[in-house]
């Protein structure tokens, strides 16, 4: 747990340099990517219009995928809202897919996942996921489940999630929110860290918002979003959602990378 750097409790708003540099240098050898890849941890509730449009397009896309041989059926148009109905993101339980533009050539990849659909209980999903993991024994990255425990500070209960069910940090984030309800955990978008900078990160970590962190294979505790999604799935051993102020010890490294970038 030394990696959490508990002794380094002060939040630095400026250049993080100094005594962290040595420790970070030792840890940064694993080839983990820099902070620029880290997601914007602030949850965007009022998502900008392009994202709404994405939902609509995804629905249309879903319909088209579903009915390749038939003329466009009437229902999806209604579902997609015909453009005249104002739909905020919260109205659709569909998680926005990763790509900004749903790719017509690869409809399946662009298709968004709806929460809790198909309606199979997580108990069953977990059991089958574990079975496939045990039974498969394959080495390739796509095999089996990646079940990790998720704990949240202050919540008496643990949950387990199968990381392979999700395709992006954003999907994971939304699922965690649904699991742990009423806190701001920060959407893990895939658009990269446009606009995230030290001060935003500092805001986040000094506030009372929660931040997802994880323990990786090396036993290090990191902020979720530090590494590319696939690498995260492979290396994450457990998740812990902690208050931003407690995650400060993880911040300096992130801050340094942020500042290195800018």
């Amino acid at each position: 747990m030394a990696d959490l750097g508990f002794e380094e409790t002060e939040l630095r708003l400026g250049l993080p340099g100094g005594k962290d540099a040595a420790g970070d240098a030792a840890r940064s050898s694993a080839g983990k990517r820099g902070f620029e890849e880290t997601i914007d941890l602030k949850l965007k509730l009022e998502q900008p219009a392009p994202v709404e449009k994405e939902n609509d397009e995804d629905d249309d896309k879903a319909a088209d995928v579903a009915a390749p041989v038939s003329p466009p059926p009437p229902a999806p148009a209604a579902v997609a809202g015909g453009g005249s109905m104002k739909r905020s993101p919260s109205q659709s339980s569909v998680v926005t897919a990763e790509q900004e533009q749903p790719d017509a050539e690869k409809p399946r990849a662009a298709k968004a996942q709806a929460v809790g659909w198909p309606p199979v209980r997580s108990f069953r999903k977990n059991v089958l996921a574990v079975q496939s993991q045990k039974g498969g024994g394959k080495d390739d990255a796509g095999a089996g489940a990646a079940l990790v425990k998720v704990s949240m500070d202050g919540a008496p209960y643990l949950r387990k999630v199968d990381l392979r069910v999700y395709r992006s940090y954003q999907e994971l984030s939304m699922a965690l929110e649904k699991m742990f309800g009423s806190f701001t955990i920060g959407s893990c978008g895939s658009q990269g860290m446009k606009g995230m900078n030290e001060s935003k990160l500092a805001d986040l970590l000094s506030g009372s918002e929660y931040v997802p962190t994880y323990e990786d294979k090396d036993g290090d505790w990191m902020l979720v979003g530090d590494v590319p999604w696939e690498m995260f799935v492979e290396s994450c051993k457990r998740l812990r959602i902690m208050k931003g102020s407690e995650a400060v010890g993880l911040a300096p490294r992130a801050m340094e990378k942020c500042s290195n970038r800018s």
Partner: protein
Amino acid sequence: MSTPHSPSSSSSSQIPQSLTLAPAASASASSSSSASGMRDAAEDDSDSPPSQMSEDDPGGGGDRWEPDLRGGNGGGGGGGRWAPPDQVLENVLESVLEFLTAARDRNAASLVCRSWCRAEAQTRRELFIGNCYAVSPRRAVERFGGVRAVVLKGKPRFADFSLVPYGWGAYVSPWVAALGPAYPRLERICLKRMTVSDDDLEVVAKSFPLFKELSLVCCDGFSTVGLAVIAERCRHLRVLDLIEDYVEDEEDELVDWISKFPESNTSLESLVFDCVGVPFNFEALEALVARSPALRRLRVNHHVSVEQLRRLMARAPQLTHLGTGAFRSEAGPGGALSVSELATSFAASKSLICLSGFREVNPEYLPAIYPVCAKLTSLNFSFASLTAEELKPVIRNCINLRTFWVLDTVGDEGLRAVAETCSDLRELRVFPLDATEDSEGSVSDVGLQAISEGCRKLESILYFCQRMTNAAVIAMSKNCPNLVVFRLCIMGRHRPDRITGEPMDDGFGAIVMNCKKLTRLSVSGLLTDKAFAYIGKYGKLIKTLSVAFAGNSDMSLQYVFEGCTKLQKLEVRDSPFGDKGLLSGMNYFYNMRFLWMNSCRLTMKGCKEVAQQMQNLVVEVIKDHSDDEGEAETVDKLYLYRSLAGPRNDAPPFVNIL
């Protein structure tokens, strides 16, 4: 204004088979039935085999909607024991009413007059409360004086699919606190979708010295610590059924709860703990089974190998229901168990009628169950990834099967084999191995058609697939007129008929038209308002309707509200229904237990209007995160339910009660 529900008119026409949640003697309807009606049908939705759970009434006890006979002060009823004019008559009445077991009959009896109401309240032994927030614990215990069993349901069903945020509610603590002092002779508690803490379990163990049955279905919040307290202190325990609960399993805090059962012979009849995922003390279990001569139902978790299973079966040859654990070998120094040795164990278990488990099944061991197949009435392969070739030799022997749960890995071919053999099948559930929208899907309309042709007595079906046709659904509607539960889940959203490209309206229309006993329906696929017009027109007995990604307009909701006169539970997601549709249900909400809608087109305006006009409805608007966006105009999740208790006081910040 609301039209009060009049149960007497409805109960006279169709008195359903009564459920007594009393011990096993009465639960003979199907093999998978059990003392507690919730048990076997727990998977994916525990609204159990149709003849069993008394879901049909507007709710037992305090749950049922009625104008308060006693003139409106909360409570009253059986609690106020002033001497009636004729004590003898009242005693006679009570003696007679003892024989009434069905909640609906009791509800009707309680409306006759005050005297009957009192007598009924004193003689009701089982209290069924379908929505724990519909009545306060205090009110319930004040009315009913002699309760021996309590059934409580909490969260709405869509909580199973992560649609209800964590911390929403349904805590059993206030109930346990009220039941303890009120019913010292309480024997049975059945909870579904409630949060039960270890402390709650301790209170139960301490409050009820005669406690006999605990059944927890889809609950969460407890761990092996709580189980240990129950095991240790409930010396008369007969039933401990843990079904699809989320058991906290912090591995470094495990308690060896199995060792805590009394050291003398126990009265255990049923021990179900396949959902308790953590390892346990096997030797302690073996010893427990050996000293539990009444044990009939045992379902172990996946930490049990076939070698261990054999030992258990040797200790309990009288078992009727067996959950087989992993069903593969953990070979010790003596080598792996042979199939024939295992088969000997099954042959010796002459009473087995229900098999489940098979959690990590090695198909080579399947022939071991052949000796019991012919007598099996219930078989659950829904965690066993079997191919058609692996299934066929087994299922060919199961000529008396009534309940069959299976994974779609067996394909249409496997289902065909089922159809060829299991002519007596009443309940079929086909679950997807890969529960995602764009999975391949291994079963289709072909399998459904085959089943409809072979299993004419089918009453309940749950079928997950990716490809379906109206023709197959129509065929089922004609071949299986006894269908009471029809739940078809076409996993890809908005999928039309795979051959004609048409919406699935006609298929579901045929189901409601031809299956005249249908009380529960789940729809999917591409559906227009026309489907709902059919449902409203023909679905006169439908009590539970689940809708997802369907319909064109608010008319769909209107058809349903106006047409489905027996509707009690409506759950809707991701459908283009707005305030107009919601408001079309205004006159019907008091007749229903609840309405759930998420990701539709509701706004605060419409929901507020409902809340204002309907004083005895609790209207909850639920957000995914309680942040400071103020009051958004759109409503993502709406949950409304009739209640005598008013707005609950345990709502978390993200729940806005209008």
